[in-house]
């Protein structure tokens, strides 16, 4: 099947949030709606050794939008069939059907679904479908100063970078089969890790 996917190189993401703001600008998103947002994972301990300090800490970023999952839990959950998956595998929301019950928001383990208080419907990343149609890359991808984002056919990306995305803070794949390929940061740990923490909660859950 033809399934579009994102590639994210966590090993070189600086957390600059250009992708986040580029997306906001492209889609005119109101405050507190972030179709793409950047999680900062950070924690660990400082160890005192005589006069010295040793940082036994971890830190990396995770830039995340909708992953246009192969088994979108959001789509199954939506009572109005407002969530649809198109022939390129892009999961889209039909604003004319959505009744704003926010139920889907509960289900998505990637925090992708975000209610737009102005439009009064659920919204999320569209994979910049209009741009794809014109043959242009999604805005976040062409925005990244680190070239840490890419997109393409899921299988191809997986072939190139290895098929893995189960890194903290993301969930295990099994829930939704996300169309997402990640190169992990050297500090990254597997999904399900119980010690790691998200450090910028106020920035990603406004």
């Amino acid at each position, binding site marked *: 099947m033809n399934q579009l996917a994102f590639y994210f190189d966590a090993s070189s993401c600086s957390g600059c949030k250009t992708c986040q703001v580029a997306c906001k600008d492209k889609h005119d998103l109101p405050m507190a709606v972030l179709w793409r947002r950047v999680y900062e994972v950070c924690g660990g301990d400082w160890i005192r050794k005589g006069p*010295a300090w040793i940082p036994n800490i971890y830190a990396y970023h995770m830039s995340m939008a909708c992953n246009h999952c192969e088994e979108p839990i959001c789509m199954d959950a939506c009572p109005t069939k407002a969530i649809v998956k198109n022939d390129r595998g892009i999961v889209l929301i039909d604003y004319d059907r959505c009744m704003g019950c926010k139920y889907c928001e509960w289900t998505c383990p990637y925090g992708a679904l975000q209610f737009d208080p102005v439009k009064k419907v659920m919204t999320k990343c569209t994979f910049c479908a209009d741009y794809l149609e014109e043959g242009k890359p999604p805005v976040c991808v*062409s*925005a990244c100063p680190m070239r840490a984002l890419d997109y393409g056919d899921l299988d191809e990306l997986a072939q190139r970078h290895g098929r893995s995305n189960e890194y903290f803070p993301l969930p295990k794949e099994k829930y939704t089969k996300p169309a997402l390929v990640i190169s992990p940061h050297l500090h990254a740990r597997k999904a399900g890790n119980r010690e790691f923490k998200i450090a910028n909660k106020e920035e990603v859950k406004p």
Partner: protein
Amino acid sequence: MKEHQIDHIPPNGNPDHQGMERRCFIKMGAVFAGGMASLGSLLGCTDEKQRIRLPGRLEKDGTVVVRAGCPAHNCGGRCVLKLFLKDGEIIRIETDDRPGDDISDPQLRACVRGRAYRRRQYHPDRLKYPMKRVGKRGEGQFERISWDEALDMMASELKRVKNTYGNSAILVPYGTGSYNQTNGRQTAARLMNLFGGSLGFYNSYSWACISRATPYVYGTGVTGNQRQDWVNSKYIILWGWNPAEMRDGTNSEYFLKKARERGAKIICIDPRMSMSATALADEWIPIRPGTDTALMSAMAHVIISEGLHDEHFIRRCCIGFDQTQMPEGMENEESYCDYIFGTHDGRPKTPQWAEAITGIPENTIIRIAREYGSIKPAMLYQGYGMQRRAYGEQPVLGGCVLAAITGNVGIPGGWASGIALQADDGGPFWNIFPTGRNPVNAMIPVFLWTEAILRGKEMGAEDGVIGTDKLDNNIKLIWCVASNILINQHADTNRSAKILKDERLVEFIAVQDQFLTPSAKFADLVLPVCTQFEMWGLEDGWKYGDEVILMPKVLDPPHETKSDYQIAAGLAERLGLKEEYTLGRNERDWIEWAVKYFRNTRFPDIPDLEKLHEMNRGVYTRPVHEPKVAFRDFRRDPVKHPLNTPSGKVEIFSKTLFDMGKPDTIPAVPKYIQEWESPFGEESRRYPLQAIGHHYMPRVHSTHDGIDWLEEAFPQRVFINPIDAQAREIKDGNTVHVYNSRGAIMIPCRITQKIMPGVVNIPQGAWWAPDKDGIDRRGNVNVLTSHRWTPLAFGNAQHTMMVEVKKT
């Protein structure tokens, strides 16, 4: 779709005219949508308006796509924005989309601020009209006046101060809001120079120490290879360098990513785990701020005692390394090795010694010293934060010396350290706009302007004054253009505010900006400036750059705003200098001139303005396939290509510095000197935490503060380690007091492991917002900084300060 050329407005030579009106845009859109573009039919609507000619694609819905430079603030980068214009409004901003994106000529991708620029461009608080002060100075009470009144007032004040005191009582202060070539501070400087001059200054707030100190070692500031060469390096130290956040030339972070892909190991030495440390480094080594020279010395100790230094290079190309190669007459003085091994002071600079000072474990020091000493070629790239400190000259000299003794000078993949302007021509020419010669010869170090207000007439060489023995005036008039230095960006804000409030000191202050900044609140006259989308402009790279970026005028200045050039030209008219000032050129003519200037200097093949504009690529570049390497000739043959130092060699020991006779503060070899405010000093009892104020992602200094999308992404916080927070019973997100003897701020904190215990970070640039008790509620770090300057460069040491934090 075809490329359309939209040229619908008759030419107009008057630079002072506002742009085309909005309705013309709408009409234009309609005409194109109807597919019957008739340029002639549009001529009617803009008779006396200046033309806005937009090249570029016209989309189905009437949107025009124009590529332009991101407004040239002092942001560390220079990028291309792709503007989507509809009905005379920017409706979207994207970035460089040139195909290829190869490192010889990479896309100049905008950062988060460029992408959020719409929120600044259309911010409701933009200044609209000229205003004069009504309340007391600094209260921020203003009243709208006309441009005529404003310019008359300005002209008469200039004349009055000139007649009463002389030109040297006038200051056009440091201001980096616009590096747009024909805009910003320099437009005022040109006028003042024609008017008889104004008090000069040298140095910058950015690079005071690094630009002054580097030449003592290398005789030049052009110590850097071109960036494309970085991929040849095998070991890279980001020493207090954070290009992922401050860019240091668009794409620096990307070049480092490429270097890493090619196998370079990267480490980062910084008190904070910066964005660069996270994204680019294999290892982060936290260091106690202000102790870098101690670490450098200990690394030298390991390198030299283990024989990892490049003996051959040192013998051929350096002096002052050890007793055997001291300059004449200096044979008995302390050489670099003498200092490192403690021959004179009895204190060998061992890793153990440095551990206690830097907080870095001895073993780590030994390890990185061995790595840097043995992995070839290696880069030690120093950032500028650590030289914006007490004795900020020392880490600069120290870095240069480490690079030299390991032989990393003059080779591909190596790096000589220091300010590292780019080979072969020193990088971009900032400020090509001809400001002319300043008839006032006197120059102060840029950081000492408040001193020159208080006691200018007493200032001489001991205060870094050059060009005269003593200043003949205190500063009496300030014309502040594209700058927030008066209040926000200078050290010790409360002190600056007190000085500026006193109308007997500075008698007249004019501030020319786009917003009512904290500095503007201290103005007697506020002049509203349009944004850089609303005027013609041109920019080149920030630090590196093999490009020229065009900034065509794409919007009309709203309300009564004008460009800096238009304002200066209007003032010139009142001062009887219009012809001399404008040379009959309007804004666009100056850009034409600037393009020619570039053609005659750096870019022989650059097309003329007309063509550049038509191409609508945003940028003209000169791809780099064979990156230049600094000091290559020198290394090959140091006799035939000597350096511009007194000895012609790399001066590890500088006799010039020695001759200054201040060994405790200006040593002849780089030394660790305990800072004047330090955790080891007396003051740490009351103020036990070191504070720094790094250059933050959502802002360019104070520019962009208060832009909602950026604040949402990067809120202003004081960053504090959990250990320090716990000791103070502070929880994440609590609003805390940060204070010292100079002032206090109160903002929420972010508890983070990414900062070393004992250090807090209050990102610099937040707009000073004192409450009724004088406590700043926005978190301007300069409330806490000291205005004491560094010994050699008279530079700002704004990162050196001790504070205490407490729960509110």
